[in-house]
């Protein structure tokens, strides 16, 4: 069992095909699989559908695949901060399926957990409920949402051991665990691969069973909105 690949291109070798559904981790530009996205751009795979909370910015994250017209459809909760996205969407080149953020996260987890459908009150009485089955419990309506079963998951973690056990850092965890769970194959990029046994078994955020391939590399980790406060002068 060797899960470690020398670079992102190698880690994606043989798992990409046109028209596939990819679940990607990340929130905004935080915790996104930036190396794997660049490798998908270089591979030129087309007509991709991405289940991803956001679509990156023009020149980073999924945005780089919008520039190359490799994305057919986005399943996202928020796609602001991306002019190219809006241009393609408004011109009809790009499909967009809005999911409430929690519904999207739960749909990914559900897919990974063998749950094809679940009920939620999120979106009841809004456009989100259109065409969806409704069921009542205790006088409250709930809509049926479906699990996402992706062809491929791409995620970004902080550290991995060689068995694929992953840990994340702070809010860079976000969608990465549910995205990792819902793919037939999951490729993870990490900042550091550590020796087996050096991660605390009680504190593995995502067990290696979910992770099929690992690649280590340098990450830009771009900050989208740098907000600071001033040190008070004594």
């Amino acid at each position, binding site marked *: 069992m060797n899960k470690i690949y020398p670079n992102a291109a190698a880690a994606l070798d043989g798992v990409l095909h046109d028209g596939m559904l990819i679940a990607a981790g990340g929130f905004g530009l935080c915790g996104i699989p930036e190396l794997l996205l660049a490798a998908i751009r270089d591979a030129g795979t087309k007509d991709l559908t991405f289940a991803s909370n956001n679509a990156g910015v023009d020149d980073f994250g999924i945005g780089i695949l919008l520039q190359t017209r490799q994305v057919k459809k986005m399943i996202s909760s928020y*796609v602001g901060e991306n002019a190219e996205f809006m241009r393609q969407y408004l011109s009809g080149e790009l499909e967009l399926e809005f999911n409430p953020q929690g519904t999207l996260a739960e749909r990914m987890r559900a897919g990974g957990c063998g749950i094809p459908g679940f009920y939620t009150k999120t979106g009841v009485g809004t456009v989100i409920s259109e065409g969806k089955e409704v069921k009542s419990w205790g006088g409250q309506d709930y809509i049926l949402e479906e699990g996402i079963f992706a062809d491929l998951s791409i995620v970004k973690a902080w550290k991995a051991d060689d068995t694929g056990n992953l840990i994340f850092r702070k809010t860079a965890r976000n*969608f990465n665990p549910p995205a990792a769970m819902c793919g037939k194959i999951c490729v993870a990029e990490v900042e550091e691969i550590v020796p087996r046994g050096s991660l605390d078994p009680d504190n593995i955020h995502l067990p290696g069973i979910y992770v099929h391939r690992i690649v280590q590399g340098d990450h830009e980790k771009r900050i989208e909105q740098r907000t600071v406060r001033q*040190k008070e002068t004594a």
Partner: protein
Amino acid sequence: MMASEIKGWGRNQMAARAAQELSDGMYVNLGIGIPTLVANYVGDKDITLQSENGMLGMGPFPFEGEEDPDLINAGKQTITELNRTSYFDSATSFGMIRGGKIAAAVLGAMEVSEKGDLANWMIPGKLVKGMGGAMDLVAGVGRVIVVMDHTNKHGESKVLKECSLPLTGKAVVDLIITNLGVLEVGHKGLHILECADGVTPDDIRAATEATIV
């Protein structure tokens, strides 16, 4: 006197009024804009802020040079952690939201109806960015508190009989705090709970399209 001429509360006063709704021990989610300012007015109440991208116990902005790209809030701003902080994934985060574990959310709005319907994510024909976590929040949290200007820039009421914009949630709003005062969503319409400084109940009625009972 025209409703549009009434000033009432400013942004910080509205935020301070919203903070009064929060009590010790509450876990709270604050939206972007005026709601963010609420954190400045909780005083010594023990409030834990949730950031729906996967964090409980959100701290203030970092000092210059201490920004961490792995530590942002739901508005994608760099923030800091506290000694009570915990991190978790997005499915868990929205599990606690959907499951009613968050006591209150303070959110901005474009429109609110007298039935508590909320519209704050989409203007048809304009750039649509998405609902993010707003639909989950209004559906799931214990109490939804809206903070917004009472009227739009054309002086038209944002507190309506029916929302004209696509909804974020149906019958979800509990309390509306505007520059003119505080309105509670009741079974038969809105109740004026409080008027802003220099504002009378009649001023609020004049500036409101919705039924006030």
